[in-house]
């Protein structure tokens, strides 16, 4: 069986791993690297539960080969928090009860991170567009959208504070 040696940066760490050419990035993350935070919901790119960021852009890891990760920066849900400090998105999801069963949450968090990294204060419309590739069947999206808008605000004010602190 053809194995491919891949070196990639995953959640800030340079990682070397062997995977089969036929293994998707999702399988590689879950089965090879034991990062089971990314979930399998459909394997056709229609649910977004496997969303990860590749070089800052959100993609479905079920529709990308592990081998294609070579030289890329990959961020999964496991990479959102810094130490014991939750990312504002994670915190706002908790405060807003933006998750019920939680299976879609990792994908939503990653997609939302990709959004607010680029767009610090998204409108409701922009948030809905950015999350339209992620299906949630529990919440009706209401509390998720609110959480993302609040998180974007928190990130901004957080940034402002740290600038103030720097002065």
């Amino acid at each position, binding site marked *: 069986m053809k194995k491919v040696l891949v070196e990639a940066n995953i959640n800030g760490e340079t990682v070397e791993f062997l995977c089969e050419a036929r293994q998707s990035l999702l399988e590689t993350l879950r089965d090879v690297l034991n990062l089971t935070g990314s979930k399998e919901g459909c394997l056709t790119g229609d649910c977004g539960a496997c969303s990860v960021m590749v070089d800052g852009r959100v993609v479905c890891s079920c529709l990308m080969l592990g081998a294609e990760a070579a030289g890329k920066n990959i961020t999964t*849900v496991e990479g959102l928090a810094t130490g014991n400090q939750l990312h504002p998105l994670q915190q706002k999801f908790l405060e807003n009860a933006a998750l019920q069963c939680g299976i879609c949450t990792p994908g939503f968090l990653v997609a939302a991170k990709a959004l607010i990294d680029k767009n610090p204060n998204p409108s409701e419309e922009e948030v809905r567009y950015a999350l339209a590739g992620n*299906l949630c069947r529990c*919440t009706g999206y209401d509390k998720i959208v609110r959480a993302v808008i609040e998180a974007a605000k928190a990130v901004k004010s957080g940034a402002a504070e740290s600038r103030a602190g720097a002065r």
Partner: protein
Amino acid sequence: MAEATSNRKFRVIGTRPIRHDGVDKVTGRAKYGADYSFPGMLHGKVLRSPHAHAVIKSIKVDKALKLPGVKAIITADDLPEAPNKMQQAGEMAINPSHLSRNILARGKVLYDGHAIAAVAATSPHIAEEALKLIEVDYEVLPPVMTVEAAMKPGAPILIPDLRNNEEGDKQTNVAQHMQFKRGDLDKGFKAADYVVEREFKTAMVHQGYIEPHNAVAIYNNDGQATIYCSTQGAFDVRSLSAQVVGVEPGKIKVVPAEIGGGFGGKTTVYLEPLALALSKKTGKPVKLVMTRSEVLRASGPTSGSTIKIKMGCTKDGKITAAQVWMAYEAGGFPGSPVVAGAMCILAPYDFENLLIDAYDVVVNRPKTAAYRAPGATNAAMASETVLDELAEKCGIDPLDMRIKNGVKEGSAHPAGPPYKRIGYIQTCEAIKNSPHYKSKLEGPNRGRGVATGFWFNAGMQSSATVNIHADGSASVVTGSPDIGGSRVSMAMITAEVLGLEVTDVRPLTADTDSIGHTDVTGGSRVTFATGMAVYEAAQDAVRQLRERAAKLWERKVEDVEMKDGKLTAKGNGVPPMSVKEIASKLGRTGGPITGRASVNARGVGAAFAATCVDVEVDPETFKVQILRCTVAQDAGKAIHPSYVEGQMQGGTAQGIGWALNEEYIYDDKGILRNSGLLDYRMPTCLDLPMIETIIVEEPNPGHPLGVRGVGEVSIVPPPAAVANAIYRAIGVRMTELPMSPPRLLKASLKRGGAADAHSAAAD
């Protein structure tokens, strides 16, 4: 008792603390069924029927068994023959033969995707390769896809030995006929000034949970087994898997993993018995996970249906009579929710003369399972749109029409019994007084619709233990898998009773060895019934705490009480003592304290919801956009309002998906065409607005905290509400679900309303 609770002040209940399991879920640490793996674990895959209806003449597995890495293959022959009559399995009544034949087909396949064989191999890939090497010889039979086709005289018979309660020894596809009858129908219709009669068709739809079914089973050589899976009911997985595989239930431990949605669809078993049987055969842990297409083809969607309804009322809007004929698709085996539907369809209305005939019909589709208020949504699409038409004829506001006819305490349910205290009228009034309903809806091709819904809710059995720890913290253990945030509610009830902070209470869902029997997370019963067990377990702990305090203070137990979260002695002398303070002294006063309670809950409170929807219809493409939506629901008492709102919003979103685009689409051979999430179209967040919620709190007298279930009823009104809104937008009365653009175009053309839409298309 709830009278007191309704105006009782709470310290914790009614607040919105962060759920205890939350951090694990936002960091990706939470362990769902598919996240489990064990040393030496094998991977299983299931061979599924490519035909909707066929006789299995032979299954040859020898080639597949020779494939390196394949460790075992099982077919129905590896499972014990099961008796073909309703009997107990644990706490529920099932037909063991039908259950077993749905897990692995025996002699016949009854739907596209019906499981035929299961393979265990050293990798999922090898297991999949092996499936291709299994040779099955079929004699293909004509598929029976609709209730009409199945009920037609001379229709192909799905289950040769199926008989019903009326036709004696005649072969049939009708598994059951149920009837509800009250008063004098003719008299009722004679008294009517207006009568509306319509026929409705609703499509088969799926719960759509994002997490596919999964199971890992480990059968040890000492005959003890453990099953890890995502389920709504670990105790049912134990009894059903034991039944199918022929193992004593007591030899199985089921560990409920975190569950990625269920909505009723994970209240039965599919993979669990296969994993168990394959592990028994190989002596190794075996894991199975469904693909999405397996979930759609071969788990348990809910019934498509045909409903004929005739309803009459007087000029001033009083309902005088209603007649209903309803037939639901059961799938390949009996057991559609048609009886539930029959008991819901007229439940919100207080009137005398009714006749309801309900038929449970087998068709070549997957065996249906529960889906959020099973049967009620199909039913409300019919009754709530016809009532809307009657209101229009009477020139009465549709909400006033419902308030005028609405059931209240003492009204008779169509099945007979009188209602206890309920909040139907209150939910209607909540919508009527909402900013949404009071607002003006302007613009062309826009319309506003309302509809209401009823669901029973369930009681059933639950167990709970509350442990007081030496540091004054507590843990609350239940057997209810947490599907939408129930653990935090259990912790809140415990904290409320013990005078602790919710953060001092750790809630957890235990496996089947670690807690007393607890029925499924379903029927909106967890916060009601398991919450009742938790409340009583906490009270049991309080009773013991009072004894310890009495000992310490050398008082009589009767003189010690729990007041405002502190143990206090009657009269003066000793300062009150918090649970935290006494906890460190437990060892010296008789040892640890565990509060326990198990209930078979009585006093279930019925649930009602009312929904208001604004839509805009593109008059040329007939695409429907939901502009605004508000739902009011009677929660009895909202323990954690955020998660009550979440249930209301989630159910509403599913109801809107059901209304607009979700449907099972089979070809003429009975093969499912849209077995993926691309073409099984659930709403994305661009398809929905914010969903405004109004929590009505009409306390349930049957619960110590006034709680009713809140998990299901919000799915019931939306399809009818959307249909009523579409009518007001473009003047077309829809009688089919889903109300997809092609169906809307067809309906408009039939009505000639779309000003000859075709030629209009170009101009």
